[in-house]
């Protein structure tokens, strides 16, 4: 099984609010792999908007994306891209 990870920073001034968390969860759900976001030692299901919001990630903070499964590499790339493009759909 493949696994992949990447460290990203939330560039926007606001935290990981409902809109970006929703976009992230939707994107993560398109992959077979298990996707987790890890912040301050807490890992949350990347496909769950509620769990992502409960990370309380603030603007300027970094977070680790981690995926395990067949398409782990693509999943991490796709989510990394969301952070880099500041969740512009």
């Amino acid at each position: 099984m493949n696994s992949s990870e990447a460290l990203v920073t939330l560039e926007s001034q606001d935290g990981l609010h409902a809109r970006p968390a929703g976009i992230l969860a939707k994107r993560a759900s398109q992959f077979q792999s298990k996707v987790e976001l890890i912040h301050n030692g807490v890992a949350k299901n990347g496909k769950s908007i509620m769990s992502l919001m409960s990370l309380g990630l603030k603007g300027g903070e970094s977070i680790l994306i981690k995926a395990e499964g067949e398409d782990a590499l693509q999943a991490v790339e796709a989510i990394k891209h969301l952070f880099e493009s500041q969740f512009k759909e």
Partner: protein
Amino acid sequence: MSQPIQGIAIYEGLALAPINKVYSHQIQIAEDLCLDVLTEKARFETAVNQSKQQIQSLIEAKKSILGPEEIQIFEAHLMFLEDPEYLSQINDKIQNQKWDATKAVDVISKEFSQMLAALPDPYLSARSQDIRDIGQRLLRNLSFKSLGENSPQSPLLGILALKEIHPSLVAELNPLYVKGVLTEEGGSTSHAAILLKNLEIPSIFGLPHLLQKIENGDVVLMDARNGMLFLNPSAEEKTWFQNQELEFQKEKALWNSLKTKAAETQDGFRIHLHANVGALSDLPSLEKYNPDGIGLFRTEFLFLDRNAPPSEEEQFQIYSKILQTMKGKKTILRTLDIGGDKIIPYLNLPQEENPFLGLRGLRLCLVHQDLFRTQIRALLRASVHGALSIMYPMVTQKSEWEQAQAIVQEELKTLHSKNVPIASTPRFGIMIEVPATALMIESYIPDVDFFSIGTNDLIQYTCACDRLNPSVRTLYSHYEPAVLKLIHQLAQTTQHHQKDLSLCGEMGGDLELIPFLIGCGLTHLSMSPSQIPKVKLRLQTLTREKCQHLAAQILKAPSAIDVKSILQNFISHL
């Protein structure tokens, strides 16, 4: 009259109708284990699908009353209903613990909601309410299914009584059937409150122990203008209600007829009536009273009830929304005015011996420049969305104005260098609240675009009396001749130099004083929106000439008592 229960008035109006305790008796969390896991899981799945359909049709049907913010919230609700973590935790409880679906939904929703509530980010912690809202919707759908009655599609009737009300339920209410809404909890700035105002349903929140005091079917009398609820109204009270109701309907009809009429005196002299706005939830009332603009928008409310100051982006969004709502009408936003009686805990400002004479208004902004600069950037960026004027509070010396303007220039430069679009014409003005500034107005005239008299503080500082201290309350009066003299001078000086002057304290909505203000030559008054129709009516009875005579007479009066009796005499002869 019997002793009423006092709550927070959310939307004015009166109602006399039977109580309908919504859902409280219908939603039951079943503690018994479920008989068949598969049936229970299917029941849950049906409730989820029903909930999704309800929200989708709600967004469709109610687009007109929902703002973009509310639509976003309901879209988030839909995503919650597809959240794999939330759904699988509920299914796990049914599968492994053999819990009834209602108990599983209740427990898991509370867990998620508490996780969010604990976050320091005020936006995120407010979303905990949305999860409770979703949980409640699922429970309603589960309960009705099992009861086989009162489906959520059948209209709710009477005066609804609840512990708290969520926006999704409000959006489903039909004002034809629902006479009023009463709750134990909830604040006037919640989304539910804003929606109730938009729907014009009389509502009172924050009624202590409401649900214990009433039973289904009890006829109650609610006076939502004053936030009062009367249980078991007597025959007398019911008659009183009918008379009040009639008056209120007449008043409303009159206001509506005035809505599109320009405010002018009997002799056709146009007076601009602007609104004072202290919260976003006041915006719907602007549509209702149709002011000529906003004369005072108190931006400090954005900074209250939270743990950290709002970001530039958040401020930008809100200022833009206000300017868009005003559709090009003049909109004066006042920069942060805190200190004095307005305290913001998270700023950790030192306590002062004499806060009204201390670091407040623009003084505070010039010391805490990070706060000020963030706000200025947000305002400048928002300026493209309407006719923005920016006003500084508590200016005492010309040098403060100069410092503030220097900061604006610096921020403008930064924004220009980033190619951020900014309207070419935000206007800058000051509030006149300090007698020193009132006396020195000529020195500001060459540089300042407009002035606005803040009467509440101008009275307090002219008469050296704390307006919140009851023992010197008699010294604080709208009719104080010294203050009226200052206002007259300001009106004359600005008129001479053709500078805009408005008046935005409580005085602007004082119906007895209006003739004097017009007599001084004031043409722009700002007041709480609900005063606007009343002031329009008053203006229709006045001529400029009569008002000028009155003003001359008043300026000779030696005391506030004399002023008041001259005004009352004048009005009784209209």
